[in-house]
């Protein structure tokens, strides 16, 4: 369970990223966060694992009270909270397997990381993660040689290798074509259901949010303006969140959705 109590984020340049956010996300939920760019979606997600430190309020992840000032505590928290990025963020020059093994860092002694001598059980876990996203046959290929959708699945495997309780995904499908976007979202949904991992996904495609999430959170100008089950997130409600009428850009094309 993740609890935000009166969370504020003020960036060093004075920009207010989040203001007075109160949220409770239950264990095992699949939450989609929607909003225009600059609404604070990324800030909200990055607050959970401390990539963006919040400036006031209380944040609890599971039984841990997040303390952005303690690097060691943050590392321990991050080992339990996996994150997926829009641009996949793989090290393209090394093999897929080594990219997945980055997810084992927190449980690997530094000297092992330095030499690249991972324990057999860590490698086994990495392979199992790759099997779960279905690209284990590419394990020894360079990440650069993979397509965008495959790279994002490697990124998901990297997160799974952490054995996380929470998965944060920051626009995971924004740089993918519609069919691939659906595939990646299906993977995420399946993993969430199979393993019961709390999943929070930022997205700007409404139809994807509606077809995969349990709950939708709408944000505008750093504030949560809508929070409810996916059925309640009708077009009218979202237009309220966006403060403009919906356009074709807000959905992935229809034919792709059928694919």
């Amino acid at each position: 369970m993740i609890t935000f109590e009166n969370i504020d984020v003020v960036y060093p340049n004075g920009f207010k990223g989040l203001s007075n956010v109160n949220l409770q996300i239950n264990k095992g939920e699949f939450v989609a966060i929607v909003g225009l760019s600059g609404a604070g979606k990324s800030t909200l997600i990055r607050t959970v694992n401390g990539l963006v430190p919040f400036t006031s309020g209380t944040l609890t992840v599971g039984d841990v009270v997040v303390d952005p000032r303690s690097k060691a505590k943050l590392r321990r928290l991050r080992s339990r909270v996996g994150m997926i990025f829009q641009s996949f963020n793989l090290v393209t020059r090394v093999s897929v397997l080594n990219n997945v093994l980055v997810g084992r860092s927190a449980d690997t002694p530094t000297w092992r990381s330095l030499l690249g001598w991972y324990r057999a059980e860590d490698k086994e876990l990495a392979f199992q993660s790759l099997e779960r996203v279905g690209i284990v046959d590419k394990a020894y290929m360079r990440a650069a040689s993979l397509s965008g959708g495959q790279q994002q699945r490697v990124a998901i495997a990297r997160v799974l290798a952490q054995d996380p309780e929470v998965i944060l995904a920051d626009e995971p499908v924004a740089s993918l074509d519609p069919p691939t976007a659906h595939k990646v979202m299906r993977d995420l949904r399946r993993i969430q259901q199979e393993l019961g991992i709390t999943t929070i996904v930022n997205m700007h495609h409404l139809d994807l949010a509606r077809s995969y999430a349990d709950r939708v959170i709408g944000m505008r100008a750093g504030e949560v303006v809508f929070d409810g089950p996916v059925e309640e997130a009708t077009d009218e409600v979202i237009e309220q969140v966006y403060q403009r009428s919906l356009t074709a850009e807000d959905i992935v094309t229809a034919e792709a959705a059928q694919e």
Partner: protein
Amino acid sequence: MSTANLNAGPGSTSQTKPRFAEDALDRRPVRPSKLRYNLGMLAVGIIFIAAVYGAGMDFGALLNLPASIIQYGQLMAAGVFQAPDETVAGYWTQSFDAMFESVAIAWVGTMVGALFSLPLGFLAARNMSPLPVYIVVRFVLSVIRAVPEIIFAIAIMLPLFGFGSGGGGALAGAMALGVSSIGTLSKLISEAIEAVDGGPLESSRASGSNQMQMIRWAVMPQVMPEVIAIWLYRFEVNIRASAILGVLGAGGIGALLSTVFGAREWDRIGIVLVVIIVVTMLVDQISAFIRHRVIHGGDLRSDGGEPQEDDDAGPGPENEPRVENDPAPKENRAAAGL
């Protein structure tokens, strides 16, 4: 299955494809052989040990090193911080004079190199010159690059212009640096020219301009900022290189260094080193500032209407797409080539 993967070493970057049928998507691939990687590492290790042995390193000498660093360091510090009476003030001015002479040597050397490097750079660029010219110029340049500057100094310049600060040694050093600069400068400039955006070239050719017009209006505006940056880099390199020529008799800071070290006057050595550090860092800072300004354009430019075609500080190719696998930024590549 996992036991097969026990020995996967660091950075397994091998590109070998897994050896099994394409449809077996869910099977774990066979670990590609790391033999070549391991052999390479082994070879580096063996070469290193052989080199340690071959150089005949005397590790005993290292035992006394910390003690002598402290001892002589104190002597040097004492020299730097002593009250500047008349003699000491003389040491300081002498050091500064010698260092400025080194800067002047490097500047003249860079100028000489720059003068020849621009036309040669065009002749050595594959997209600018006919193949026979290209091959000949490239060969000459690589021979020049292979000859260290001390060779030019010893073989030609010092006997030609004379030894010592007063007797033409400085000019000899400058000319030696200049000739040896031609090689690297021309090569880097030719690479910059080869990397220009082909679009403006094509359009100027299409509009019927001749070779010179094309160079002036399509190539020069694109490469000039980078060329200036390359020249400035070489200037920084030449300041350091002038020291070794000074020891040979070409004047400048090198001559003073060899004098004070010969006499082992540690207080003067300290002063000379401080002057070297201060002046070199200062020149590096100024040069880095100009390089940055020339490549990224100045703030004054942003309000100007039309882009200007002047050769000194045209706006850099800022909107150039970033290449994903470029191992180093542009400025870095220039430095690595020098």
